[in-house]
């Protein structure tokens, strides 16, 4: 047995000796750690392009991309596209999130709701959005409503699945508790179901945000005259690699920023959790 043979000595005011135990969890978060990998990726791109390892004909050089972006900003195309796409994505996202959440709660709390809602949603999500476009055009025309609804359709699936799954994963003992407290169904949803499904919902939101951006590429093929997706499609029709890469960089920026935002919300909204992450 390990014993201490040293006599007790006075402890300095703020000396802090704690038992060392190998940490099995991930440890404390690294501040802005998420940026390291992205910086590395950028670095690889810059270095690869500068040394000629990356053929600029395959992947445009970063500086060319910056120059192209500059031109696009100058002639206003980039801003215009961002605004147009931003509005579409936001509307679609809002609609999709609302519908997805409501459906998830209905289907999560009632077996009848589930048997009606769940199957069709699984069907929907097995079908490529692209293949739905003809039907959506048929029903909704080729204007903005079609675009927004198509985005919403892409968005509501992850929201539904995640919220439904999160809700169904709530520990049964909390439902028991609520039953003994005699809460109404609305209170149950508000105080138990929604907060309990929040982790699932937020994960779904991370996917929903990306889905809304990716759906732009699909919908802005149809009767659009501006938008990031339209810009990329057009550029790829003409083989303008540099513009495509600008578009992709914008996508990456938007995606990473949105994801970080949702994860920030996650950290705030789920501060009650004591998990490996915290």
């Amino acid at each position, binding site marked *: 047995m390990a014993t201490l043979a040293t006599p007790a000595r006075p402890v300095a005011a703020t000396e802090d000796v704690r038992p060392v135990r190998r940490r099995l969890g991930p440890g404390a978060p690294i501040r802005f750690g998420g940026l390291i990998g992205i910086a590395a990726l950028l670095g690889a791109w810059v270095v690869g392009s500068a040394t000629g390892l990356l053929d600029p004909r395959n992947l445009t050089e970063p500086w060319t991309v910056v120059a192209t972006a500059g031109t696009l900003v100058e002639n206003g195309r980039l801003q215009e596209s961002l605004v147009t796409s931003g509005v579409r994505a936001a509307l679609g996202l809002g609609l999709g999130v609302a519908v997805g959440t409501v459906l998830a709660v209905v289907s999560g709390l009632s077996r009848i709701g589930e048997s009606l809602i769940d199957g069709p949603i699984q069907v929907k999500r097995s079908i490529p959005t692209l293949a739905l476009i003809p039907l959506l055009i048929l029903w909704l025309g080729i204007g903005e409503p079609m675009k927004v609804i198509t985005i919403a359709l892409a968005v509501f699936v992850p929201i539904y699945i995640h919220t439904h799954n999160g809700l169904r994963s709530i520990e049964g*003992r*909390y439902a*028991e*508790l*609520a*039953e*003994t*407290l*005699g*809460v*109404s169904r609305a*209170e149950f949803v508000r*105080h*138990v179901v929604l*907060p*309990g499904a*929040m982790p699932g919902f937020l994960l779904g939101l991370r996917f929903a945000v990306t889905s809304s951006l990716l759906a732009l590429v699909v919908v802005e093929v149809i009767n659009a005259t501006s938008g990031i997706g339209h810009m990329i499609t057009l550029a790829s029709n003409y083989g303008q690699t540099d513009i495509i890469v600008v578009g992709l960089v914008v996508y990456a920026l938007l995606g990473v920023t949105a994801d970080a935002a949702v994860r920030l919300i996650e950290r705030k909204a*789920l501060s*009650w*959790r*004591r998990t490996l992450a915290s």
Partner: protein
Amino acid sequence: MASHTGELKLDAAVRVQALHRSFNEAGGVLNGLDLDIAPGEFVALLGRSGSGKSTLLRALAGLDRGVAGHGRIAVPERVSVVFQDSRLLPWKRLLDNVVLGLRVPGAAERGSQTLAEVGLAGREKAWPHELSGGEQQRASLARSLVREPQLLLADEPFGALDALTRIRMHTLLRRLCEVHRPAVLLVTHDVDEAIVLADRVIVLDDGVVRHDARIDLGTRRSQADPAFARLRAELLHELGVEDDHDAVRGRSTLDERAAS
């Protein structure tokens, strides 16, 4: 509302008849249990670990839908449960946990006041995970007490409390019982606690009520009272502990004394 009357059978808050419950084919946990509790009566439930005390409470609370079994149960409408685990919603702060579903005017004040009564004044905004084990237990007690039930089912509500806090909680519980007169079924492992608090102590064994003792010690109950000691020895005997005073013993002589 007399709890010691002969009409008990005709005027019960809880009536359990021939209750069976089992979790698998191996054998039943409750095997034809009968139990009546009069309105306002305070019953303490003793029993070995795993004897089915929580199973009985869950049956009374209507929380065992999936469990195989039969029998007849009648309980009042407003039942409040103190679970064996404290079962605070981890995503709600303490006060919100306590007043959850409480639909009375001034719920928040009443919640705060009850928190103060269980010694958690000023902790309204704490998260459940910031509480010590005993604090969680008291919070869960507060949640049950704040809603004045007709029947209170409490599953070892004082298990994680020190002697002084426990006495305070006893006091609080008795006071509330005197005001609102709920029927109480309280699970405890502490025979003294059972004798001190209850009108009646029952012992669960083999899935039935094996022992049913009315406590007639009056309102002032002292461990020094020989009647108290007798009751205690009787109950401990029922629980399989042969000799009260020697029951708790140190070092290596312990083995042979623990009756099987």
